[in-house]
């Protein structure tokens, strides 16, 4: 996926000024939030399960190589071919090799965020094959030639009118705005593709080391189609997705679906283990899995390792006031919201996504809802610190901090300067005691006024009170 995180501020401005996006984000508002809150009342020991789920993910990560090797051995024993991709480009190369050597022409895909990282669809098209997205949201976006804006509801930024227009243009059908009718239209368009595709690509919510299986958690049934009907199935997923056992999966999935869509369980939870067996009448003849590193191993052993616990539920973005206002595209890469603000700089380089860790008020809502207790605000703070240490922040910011530090470490100087500043600001505040503009900080005063100080510093007031 094209990386535009470096122009985050410009992206944000555009999104804030886009009336249809603003309308669609308002509608998005609290629906996921409410659904999650409602379904969590079923879980009387939520905190206990969260602690357990975080521990399960930590256990996998702490011995990631052992669990990956165990997974690989079990998967191979059941006939799955395991491939390893160091970079996003490797993912595309491996996939195209598998496709070429099997004479594949048409590919159907269910949702895979990892394949967005590598821009797989474009690579496949360039290799002369057709890849069709089949998750309704992803299908809409493929027609619209747009990237996803949410990890579980990729077309959240689109209204029914926009979808209606798109379908009628691309399918050459009469325009209809009835949502169930649009869903049926997509079903009818996609069914023939499921039946005629040579290869199905899926993501993988989890890998199970115990059995060498990949698990996908879905609602629409397209995930089942792409892993059952075509003669080749390829699952693409990150190396961090491994879980030791089926029981661990049971614990984690209770929180995943509830945190994501507010469902006690999704319609389908499918565990796939190898190709079709002797005598089976359906299922793929070949089963492949591509394990992707692409920056993940770099996080191990650092404070950011905790971000690899992520089970991609999307709750952090659903609850984020910044995401709710700007939508997912502004973040400029595959993963938006708080987890994106941590993962994007980590995967694509801090210098390419400098503003993302700043795009938070650190209100902490994300951390409160994260089912695996990732301290997202803390991790954003770590990245902020790093970007300062590496001298990546703009000169005026570095200078301001330098000046402030100099003043703050000299108490007399500090007292003198603040005394001067509050008097000046009081003057500027005028009769209504409000500052309408702050030189150098006009971003802040654009939408609000700053109350002018009283004219005396805290220390002066304190001294007065003491005497």
């Amino acid at each position: 996926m094209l990386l535009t995180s470096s122009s985050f501020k410009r992206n944000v401005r555009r999104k804030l000024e886009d009336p249809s996006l603003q309308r669609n984000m308002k509608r998005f508002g609290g629906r996921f939030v409410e659904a999650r809150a409602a379904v969590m009342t079923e879980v009387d020991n939520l905190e206990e399960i969260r602690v357990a789920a975080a521990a399960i993910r930590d256990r996998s990560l702490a011995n990631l190589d052992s669990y990956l090797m165990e997974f690989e051995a079990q998967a191979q024993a059941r006939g799955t071919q395991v491939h390893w991709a160091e970079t996003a480009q490797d993912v595309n190369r491996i996939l195209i090799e598998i496709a070429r050597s099997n004479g594949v022409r048409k590919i159907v895909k269910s949702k895979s965020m990892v394949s967005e990282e590598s821009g797989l669809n474009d690579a496949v098209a360039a290799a002369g094959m057709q890849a069709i997205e089949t998750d309704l949201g992803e299908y809409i976006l493929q027609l619209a030639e747009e990237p996803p804006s949410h990890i579980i509801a990729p077309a959240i930024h689109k209204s029914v009118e926009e979808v209606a227009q798109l379908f009628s243009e691309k399918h050459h059908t009469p325009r209809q705005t009835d949502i169930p009718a649009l869903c049926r239209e997509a079903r009818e368009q996609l069914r023939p593709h499921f039946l005629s595709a040579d290869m199905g690509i899926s993501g993988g919510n989890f890998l199970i080391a115990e059995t060498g299986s990949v698990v996908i958690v879905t609602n629409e049934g397209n995930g089942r189609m792409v892993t059952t009907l075509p003669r080749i199935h390829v699952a693409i997923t990150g190396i961090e997705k491994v879980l030791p056992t089926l029981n661990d999966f049971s614990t984690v999935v209770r929180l995943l679906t509830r945190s994501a869509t507010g469902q006690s369980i999704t319609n389908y939870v499918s565990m796939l283990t190898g190709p079709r067996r002797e005598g089976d009448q359906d299922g793929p003849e070949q089963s492949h899995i591509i394990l992707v590193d692409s920056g993940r191993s770099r996080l191990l052993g650092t404070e950011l390792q905790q971000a690899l616990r992520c089970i991609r539920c999307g709750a952090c973005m659903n609850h984020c006031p910044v995401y709710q206002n700007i939508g997912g595209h502004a973040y400029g890469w595959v993963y938006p919201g708080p987890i994106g603000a941590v993962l994007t700089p980590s995967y694509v380089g801090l210098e390419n996504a400098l503003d993302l860790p700043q795009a938070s008020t650190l209100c902490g809502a994300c951390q409160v809802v994260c089912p695996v207790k990732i301290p997202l605000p803390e991790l954003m703070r770590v990245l902020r610190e790093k970007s300062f240490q590496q001298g990546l922040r703009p000169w005026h910011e570095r200078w301001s901090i330098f000046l402030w530090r100099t003043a703050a470490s000299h108490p007399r100087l500090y007292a003198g300067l603040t005394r001067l500043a509050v008097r000046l600001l009081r003057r500027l505040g005028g009769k209504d005691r409000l500052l309408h503009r702050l030189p150098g900080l006009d971003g802040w005063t654009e939408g609000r006024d700053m109350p002018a100080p009283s004219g005396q510093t805290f220390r002066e007031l304190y001294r007065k009170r003491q005497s």
Partner: protein
Amino acid sequence: MSARDNILARVRSGLGLPGNVPGAERDKARAYIAEQPRGPRPTYGWSDGVARFCERSEKLGSSVDRVGSLAEVPQAVARYLQSKTLPTSAVIWPVLNALPWAAAGLAVQARSAQDSDLVGITGAFCAVAETGTLMLLSGKDTPATVSLLPETHIALVDVTRIVPGMEEAWALMKAEQGAPPRAVNFVSGPSRTADIEQTIVIGAHGPYRVHVVCYG
């Protein structure tokens, strides 16, 4: 070095683990896998698993029927199809072929499903009371497509095989089958999507209707 070795080496050095290959840690990982501890789960405030299963199934948008024995199932299925004015021909799991379908007025074919099949009838390996979920295992007499391609999915559930949670379902699978089959599908109601304006629509790519017949 291969990509695999490079990745595993990076993982090890990132984690600060000594050497190139895990020794004792891998044994520890294996021991943990063998032990398979169960995690905490919500308090199960019900005692009647069958009632809980039926109640949750309906909440998921499935319809539920209950008959006394497996032999009565074809009649019950026929009644359901007639009440919904659905076709009376169906594709069924080969493992169910011996039931008196014809006597109930149903024309069934035992095979994997095709696009043109409108009704698919399956059994269930077991069912999960906590969430109202069916557990289906693929196999030569239980093809996965029968619960997927037709618009109507009818599932027969033996009430003695309703287990409390997913953990018990896995345990049952391992006890009876050892390793997992190609596909384990947990099915919880008809397929759905909320991808347009977060409006839930029943019937995405999979079945529009799931009807559960509990027997026994």
